C-alpha cells in the first residue's frame, strides 16, 4: 500500500508534533520545581501556604532577599565563592601540569592515570570521617584552608584525567617548535599548551567549580560556624517545626546565579570543550 505524497506529509507533521509534545511535557516536569522555587522566593510567607496554591505571586516581595542580609546567609554564599574559586584555580593549575606530564612524558606508564581516576570513585562518606579526624588533629576543621584542601584533593583526579585527554590531542610538534624557538618547558606550557587547551581547560574548570560550590557531604562534616558554605547554610532553614521556604527559595536563586552566569559566559567553550575531550581519555 503506497501513500500519496500528501498523506506522507501529514504523517510526518503528526510525528513531529507528537515529538514536540512529549519533549514539552518532559521539560515541564523538570522545570516545574525550579519555577516553583523562583516563585516561592517572591511570595509572602502566608501566600506560600495558601490553598489553592497561587501560580504567580500576587505581589512581588523582595523581603526574602532583604532578610538574607541579617544572619549568615550572604556570608555563606561568599564563603562558597571563595572556597570554590581558590580550590578550582589551584586544582586546575596542579592538575594541568600533572596531566601534561602524564600525557607527554608517560609518567607512571598507563596505570598511574587510571589509578588517579580511581581515587574519584571512592564514596565521599568513606573518606569523610577519617579525614575529619585528621583535620581535627591539625586544626583544619571549620577553616577556609580545610575545605579548600579537601576540594582540591577531590577535584584533582577529575582535572588530571580530563586535561590529559585534551593535552594528548595537541600536536606535540607545536610545543617542540616552541622549545626550539627559544622557550623553556614552562614557557612552552604557558604560551602553547595552555592556549591550545583553552576550551578544554575552561570546561573542566566550570565542572570543578560547580562541584566545589555545591558540595554538601564534606562541608557539613568539616564546618561548624565560621566557614559554613552555601549548601550547608540552606539546611539551617529547615527546623524541626517548620521550613522557611521563602528564605530557602531566595537563597537558592542567589546561589544558582554565579554558576548560571559562568555557564552562560563560557557556553561557547563548554560545548567545544566537552565534545573535544569526548574521544580521548
Amino acid at each position, binding site marked *: 500500500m503506497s501513500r500519496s505524497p500528501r498523506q506522507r506529509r501529514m504523517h510526518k507533521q503528526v510525528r513531529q508534533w507528537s515529538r514536540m509534545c512529549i519533549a514539552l511535557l518532559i521539560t515541564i516536569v523538570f522545570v516545574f520545581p525550579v519555577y516553583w522555587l523562583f516563585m516561592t522566593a517572591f511570595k509572602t510567607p502566608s501566600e506560600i501556604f495558601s490553598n489553592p496554591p497561587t501560580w504567580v505571586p500576587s505581589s512581588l516581595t523582595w523581603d526574602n532577599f532583604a532578610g538574607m542580609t541579617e544572619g549568615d546567609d550572604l556570608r555563606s554564599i561568599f564563603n562558597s565563592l571563595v572556597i570554590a574559586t581558590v580550590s578550582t584555580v589551584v586544582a586546575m593549575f596542579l592538575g594541568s601540569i600533572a596531566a601534561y606530564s602524564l600525557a607527554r612524558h608517560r609518567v607512571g606508564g598507563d596505570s598511574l592515570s587510571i589509578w588517579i581516576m580511581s581515587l574519584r570513585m571512592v564514596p565521599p562518606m568513606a573518606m569523610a570521617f577519617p579525614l575529619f579526624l585528621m583535620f581535627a588533629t591539625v586544626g583544619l576543621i571549620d577553616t577556609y584552608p580545610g575545605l579548600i584542601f579537601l576540594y582540591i584533593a577531590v577535584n584533582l583526579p577529575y582535572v588530571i584525567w580530563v586535561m590529559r585527554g585534551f593535552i594528548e590531542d595537541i*600536536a606535540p*610538534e*607545536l610545543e*617542540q*617548535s*616552541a*622549545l*626550539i*624557538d*627559544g*622557550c*623553556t618547558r614552562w*614557557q612552552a606550557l604557558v*604560551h*602553547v599548551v595552555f*592556549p*591550545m587547551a*583553552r576550551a578544554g581547560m575552561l570546561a573542566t574548570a566550570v565542572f570543578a567549580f560547580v562541584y566545589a560550590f555545591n558540595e554538601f557531604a564534606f562541608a557539613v562534616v568539616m564546618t561548624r560556624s565560621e566557614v559554613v558554605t552555601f549548601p550547608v547554610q540552606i539546611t539551617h532553614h529547615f527546623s524541626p517545626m517548620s521550613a522557611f521556604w521563602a528564605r530557602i527559595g531566595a537563597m537558592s536563586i542567589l546561589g544558582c546565579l554565579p554558576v548560571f552566569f559562568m555557564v552562560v559566559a563560557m557556553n561557547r567553550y563548554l560545548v567545544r570543550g566537552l565534545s573535544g575531550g569526548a574521544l580521548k581519555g
Partner: protein
Amino acid sequence: MANLRLEKVHKSYGPVPVVRGIDLYIPDGEFTVLLGPSGCGKSTLLRVIAGLEDADEGEISIDGQSVNDVRPRDRDVAMVFQNYALYPYMSVYENIAFGMRIRKMPEDEIRRQIAWAAQLLEIEDLLQRAPRQLSGGQRQRVAMGRAIVRKPRLFLFDEPLSNLDAQLREGMRTEIKRLHQALRITTIYVTHDQVEAMTLADRVVLMNQGVVEQQGPPMELYERPSSRFVASFLGSPPINYLDAHLKREGDAVRLQLPDQTTLDLPAERAARLVEVDEQPVTIGLRPEHFVLRHGSQAASVQVGISLLQPAGPRVFTNFEWAGVPMMAEFSAREGLRQGDTLLLGLDLARAVILDPTTGRALGA
C-alpha cells in the same frame, strides 16, 4: 653559519635501537639530505640534532662545541615540521614573531625581520591572517619564515613537503633551494623522497636501519652505489639485477650470464675490479643503461617487448632477458610498439657490480 659534527651517536627507544652509531660531518653552508625508508632513524637523528631527543651515546657538536647538554632553545637551530606546527591562535605575523618575542628582541627589530622574511617568501599579504585561512603551500612558507627570521646556525627540515600535493611540492622544492642559495645557512633536510634528495642536496646521507649506508654528492650515490640497498633505493624506475659469473682472461674481465652469454667489461670498468677474483656476481643495470641499437652490432642482446608504459617524453619498456624480467627506459620518439623485437646494447661502464652474498659493491 656553522658546521655540525656527530660522533658515534646512538639512540634507542626502550629496547629498540633506532640510531646505531652515526658519524657525520656537515661543513658550513652545506645542504645535507638525510634520506632513507621510513623507520631508518633519519627523523630521530634530526630530533637528536635539534635537542628534542637526547642521544644515549655519542657526541654532537656545533662549531666544535659539544651541545649534548644544551637545551634546544640554546642550540640556536630552527626547525620546520612536516605539519608546519603553526600556532592556530596567533596571526601569521605573531607566529613569525614568536621566537623573537620569547628572546626579547626589540619590537622594531622584530618588525624589520618579519618584513624582510615576508618579502623573501612573498607572504606580505598574509601577515594578518590566521593559519587556518592559509593553503598548505602558504602555511609552509610561514613555517619557513618563522625559521629564517632568527638567522639560526642550523636549519632543520623534517619532511616539510610530504603534506603537499605533487605540483605544489615541486614549487616549494624550488623555493627551498632558492632560499638556501640566498642565505647559505647549513641545512639538514629529512625526506624519504629520492627526487627531493637528488634535486636539493649538496650531499645525500642515505640511512638504513639506524646506520649510514653511504654518503656523498647525489650523483655519486646514484652512479656508484656502495651496496645493493643504495642501488635499489635510488632510481625510478628501479635498477635491474642479473646474476652472473665474473671471469678473468688476462687483463680482460668477462661476465658470464646463466644462459652462457658473455659480456666483456670495458677496460676502465675492469680496471676498478683488479682486486676481485673470479666469483659469482650480481650485475645492476639501471633502465637508462640499456641502449637501443639499430642494425646488428657486437655486444648486443635481442629481446621482445612484453609491455610499454609511456611516461611523457620517456617510455618504460618491460622485457625479459636471460629469464629475468627487466625494465628499460627509452625516448618516446623511438616509436616502440608492444611485441617489437629490440636489439639492445649495454652501458657496462656504468653498470653496478655487486657481491651477491654481502650485497656490497665491487670496485665501486
